[in-house]
């Protein structure tokens, strides 16, 4: 029982990850795909932060009266990842705008149709 509770967070993260993955492979709208990618990305952030939590710990800000701190390193990694993530997402969205200008559509199948 304790085993299942200790893994529960990972399973929620995997569920979110697979939801994002599903959007990317099943939807043909390019903006929808970018949204799916960012759901996937956020789930990875949550995975790292879950790994960093230490039982009975507190936020890693050194202060008197606290002995146990959660791991600060996943936080540092993910802070960088969030900012890089929004940078890559903005490039993807700019590409979508360009595709719309060139093809008059952002539906994948219609774009393939025109390229045929």
């Amino acid at each position, binding site marked *: 029982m304790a085993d299942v509770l200790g893994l529960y967070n990972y399973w*929620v993260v995997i569920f979110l990850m697979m939801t994002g993955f599903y959007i990317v492979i099943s939807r043909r709208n390019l903006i929808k795909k970018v949204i799916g990618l960012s759901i996937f990305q956020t789930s990875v952030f949550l995975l790292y932060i879950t790994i960093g939590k230490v039982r009975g710990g507190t936020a890693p800000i050194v202060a008197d009266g606290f002995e146990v701190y959660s791991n*600060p390193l996943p936080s540092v990694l993910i802070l960088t990842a969030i900012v890089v993530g929004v940078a890559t997402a903005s490039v993807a969205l700019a590409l979508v705008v360009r595709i719309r200008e060139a093809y008059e559509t952002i539906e994948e199948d219609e774009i393939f149709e025109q390229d045929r």
Partner: protein
Amino acid sequence: MSSTVDLEVQTVTALLLTLLCVTALAVVRMRNLWAAVMLMGIYSFLGASWMLLLDAPDVAFTEAAVGAGISTILALATLALTTTRSKQPARSQAGPLAIVTVTGAVLMYGTVDMPRFGDPEAPASTYPHPSYVERTEHDIHIPNVVTAVLGSYRGYDTLGETVVIFTAGISVLLLLQGSRRRTRDEGGGESP
């Protein structure tokens, strides 16, 4: 006393996780892109709340500001330049669903070997030796260890990060350069 606090935290966590899953599923179903973008904002904000419960306040407020704020604005700007409706998926969804189910099952099987949630003996929490947390204030004079690592111990990584953002900004400018000039008059008619 501490067990009641534990119970409260667990209840709030369970609620947040349920809402996260429901929001993600709603994004899958949503065909109106404007609503999907708004739901993404909610999703990011729920994620940020969970991060706060997991002792990562720095990440939580970055996610709330950048994930729920700036991302949403960028996505809305894209919608204004393109369209807010997505077509009904015509293909059968059985294939993607099968792929996702199998991948998810394999990943869940993989988690059986993972250290349990909150384990102080987990490899992630024992290496490098956690004593650097106590030394941070002496070394860098900042009590917040996350800030100290980000700004000083691993300052070069943060510099690299700003280079990535700069590159992305340049790319967006180059991609959209002159887009107004190229856009024909009927082109932007579908903005909300």
